[in-house]
């Protein structure tokens, strides 16, 4: 292969690598143990496992209801209840003298 062809192969491989998203594979797999898929919802997904047993980090998909403002979305009803319940949760924390910082 001449240099030109080698360059083309390199470009081709770079293109394939760039289009491969590990996150997509993890987020779509049912029953993942909660370690490290992010990119959905509020994007707070962490990674790695903490010690023995089930992972201690949030799975990225757990915040999916947060971005479900669409009235036809599958988590829209959960989202609506969550918005109402957040008022109660804040009240309960305040009653126990927990002052919350402003939402970031």
């Amino acid at each position, binding site marked *: 292969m*001449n240099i030109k*062809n080698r360059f*083309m*192969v390199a*470009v*081709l491989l770079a*293109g394939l690598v*760039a*289009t491969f*998203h590990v996150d997509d594979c993890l*987020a*779509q797999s*049912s*029953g*993942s*143990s*909660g370690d490290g898929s992010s*990119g*959905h919802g509020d994007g*707070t*997904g*962490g990674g790695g*496992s*903490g*010690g*023995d*047993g*089930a*992972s*201690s*980090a949030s799975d990225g*998909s*757990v*915040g*999916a*209801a947060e971005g*479900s403002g669409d009235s036809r*979305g*599958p*988590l829209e*009803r*959960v989202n*609506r*209840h*969550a*918005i*109402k*319940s957040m008022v*109660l*949760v*804040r009240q*309960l*924390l305040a009653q*126990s*003298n*927990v002052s*919350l*910082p402003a*939402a*970031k």
Partner: protein
Amino acid sequence: MMETRNRLASKSLRWLAGATLAWWSLAAPAQQAAAPSQVPTDVAELAATFNDEVIPFNDQLIVLGKPDAKVTAVLLFGLSGDTGYFMERVFPSLKEKYVDSGRIRLIIYDFPLTWHDMQALAGFRCLPADKHLEVLQAAVRHNTFAQGMKRASYLNTPDHVWGILKNFGIPRDKAEQCMRNNAIVGHVEALRRTATQSWWVTWAPSFIVGNRVLHNPSSLGQIEAVLNSALKEGK
């Protein structure tokens, strides 16, 4: 002959490279734009099983200690191996030394890490408030519960949670209805969202005193440093 073959190979490679670049430039931005509002397929399938029944449930926080304690701390409780470790090794001495002695008030706060947890914690909220801490402790007593539950699909979660809830005298059909109820799951989601938006946490256990957040504390010593400084300040 050799030259023709080389020319053909070169042409095909150029064509492939061009096609790849074109695919990349079109596909990558489209994927990025779609991500924020996308609900993963397995979560959407789970959500399709949710019900709107009006079910009474425990919507309170677990608050331990005396109301006049000078400091209130929050323990974010997740169905994780580290929370199990914390509850077994750190919680008993923390409770004895700081909570039972009246020095601090401690809130045990459900913090779901996955959609398995979301269902499990929703199911636990169908028990009376005085059983809430007991069921949470039972759920992290053995690593096998959370590990087994999280290895299975979201749709299979009730089979695992039932292993815990059956010891609390709740019928299986009611337990499953609670785990898949929009209002109860919404309440658990509200707890998660309030914690992530207020303290920027994604980890359980986390221990919060005032504006100090300890991620995954694994010894009483780590907590004591923060607690004692808060007690001095009287927060």
